[in-house]
């Protein structure tokens, strides 16, 4: 299994010399295997544009499966410029878990609407299907992939995804707050809450349920890609923004005995120098191995002997 990083940034793309090493594109990773012509794409931040060009150039992948963790712009803003959508010969399936108050059709209509975009859904020449699925059961898709999901702790919801192929397992966990203080839902929280008073008793069970759901999803994962947009000071200042620190991610990885943690969804202000320091800080860790996500790189999972 090959996990490739096309956009590793959170919130908003960032351009310039201070982020050129790790990259400035927003969230997008792809998963492929050497005995499958299907490609899984997780999120469609601006990184998906470059991925689209690579797919056209390489001309090997024809079946594309796109999953979104949620519809915040940094996870969907590149979709309009995903070139295979406009080319015939590609079979593209867009998946969305069924959720109350959410409609993938409405989201796509807005993203490709006249106000924002000169390109519309009518311009698509690929064979595009949209599938809403029940996220309480695993989904099997062509190419031998099994996809399952679990809810995350993020404003207006998000989902983690587990992708299995021939015994290799990658779990994609973004965006999420930890499960220690407060449940983030549809209510807008304008000011940083006082962490010393949290969690309130009514939320403890819900937090534990969400955490155990994620731990089950991550069980025996070879690779976990985790939202670590925050450092501990950031989290203490803004626990209501819905992001984690490396320590939160490490806690989950240790519980499930994951082999490899990739720190992901870097804050736009996190420079290459800062990310180098983060990489150095965790370089001696072996349980799990910890690396920092970097654009245009890939991680190979070879537990089952395939790539």
């Amino acid at each position, binding site marked *: 299994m090959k996990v490739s990083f096309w956009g590793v940034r959170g919130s908003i793309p*960032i*351009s*310039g010399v201070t982020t050129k090493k790790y990259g400035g*594109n927003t969230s997008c990773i792809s998963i492929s295997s050497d005995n499958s012509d299907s490609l899984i794409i997780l999120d469609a931040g*601006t990184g998906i544009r470059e991925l689209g060009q690579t797919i056209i150039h390489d001309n090997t992948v024809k079946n594309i499966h796109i999953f979104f963790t949620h519809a915040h712009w940094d996870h969907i803003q590149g979709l309009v*410029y995903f070139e295979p959508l406009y080319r015939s010969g590609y079979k593209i399936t867009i998946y969305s878990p069924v959720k109350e108050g959410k409609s993938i059709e409405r989201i796509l209509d807005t993203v490709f609407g006249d*106000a924002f*975009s000169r390109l519309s859904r009518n311009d698509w020449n690929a064979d595009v299907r949209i599938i809403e699925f029940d996220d309480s059961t695993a989904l099997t898709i062509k190419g031998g992939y099994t996809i399952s999901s679990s809810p995350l702790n993020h404003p*207006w919801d998000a989902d983690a995804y587990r992708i299995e192929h021939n015994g290799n397992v990658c779990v994609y966990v973004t965006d999420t707050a930890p499960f220690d203080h407060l449940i983030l839902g549809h209510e807008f929280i304008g000011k940083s809450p006082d962490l010393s008073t949290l969690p309130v008793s009514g939320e403890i069970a819900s937090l534990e349920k969400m955490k155990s759901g994620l731990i089950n999803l991550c069980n025996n994962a070879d690779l976990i890609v985790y939202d670590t947009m925050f450092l501990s000071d950031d989290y203490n200042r803004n626990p209501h923004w819905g992001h984690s620190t490396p320590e939160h991610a490490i806690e989950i990885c240790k519980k499930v005995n994951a082999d490899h943690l990739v720190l992901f969804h870097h804050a*736009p202000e996190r420079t290459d120098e800062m990310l180098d320091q983060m990489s150095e800080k965790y370089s001696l860790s072996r349980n799990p191995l910890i690396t920092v996500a970097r654009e245009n790189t890939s991680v190979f999972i070879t537990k089952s002997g395939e790539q």
Partner: protein
Amino acid sequence: MKISFHGVRGFIPVPGARTLCYGGNTLSFGVETENGSLVGIDAGTGLSTWSRALMARADMRGSGKFNLIITHTGYEHVQGFSFFIPALVGGNTVNIYQHNDINIADVLESQVAAEFSPMQTLSNFGSDIKFFSYKSDEIIQIDELSIVLQTFPCGNSKSTAVKIQDKNSTAVFLTQVTHNTESIKKIIDFSSGADILIHDSFSGGDITNSSRDFSNDGQQAVEVASAAGVSKLILTRYHHSLDDKNLEDILKRCIDSPSNKNPELCIELSREGNIILI
């Protein structure tokens, strides 16, 4: 008049080594008055980058006023607004100016709706965000700056041209425009006599195609600048497929263009981080 460039890219941001010289952020320009008043033109991702620098100003931490003109509703003109830090700070005021023909307010509200943004609605931003609509013959006065907005056809939509004048100089921003035989005369009239014309360089074609032909990019801008008698033309809104070398090729073709009838016309590429004093 001081003009600053924070985002010069059209369509979608393109960070990376290929765009390091001229920049990969989407559209954002700044004009600063002698008194330090700020006028932003467009709210692409460059506005977010600019706003981190703006927070060094004491007034932007709770008593500041920022004036913003958004010329078009497309992604490259609006997508940085959610991360424009002064708009998130209580006590600040953000005045957003729009032409009567274009409803920027509704588009920004749609952009920050709950499914798409943790802010959920503009009223959750900490600052006082106000919208002002103007007709083509009305003047927006900000300190010594007199500002006029006029709309022109742009595909199926309309785009706003912005003319900013102080007592000594005139700058015109045409950030996204589609020329046709009817509109080009009006565009030339609107730009006539400007010291600086900052003009869309995209010449059309298949937006999605990463290998589109860009040999005509900038040529219509040269035609307008030359006919309008402007002193300096600055090309902007580069297609996402273009790297730094491609842009320099476009500049060379524009300098050598047969459409340029004015040998005195200075032509440059807009570049993130540049500041021009007129």
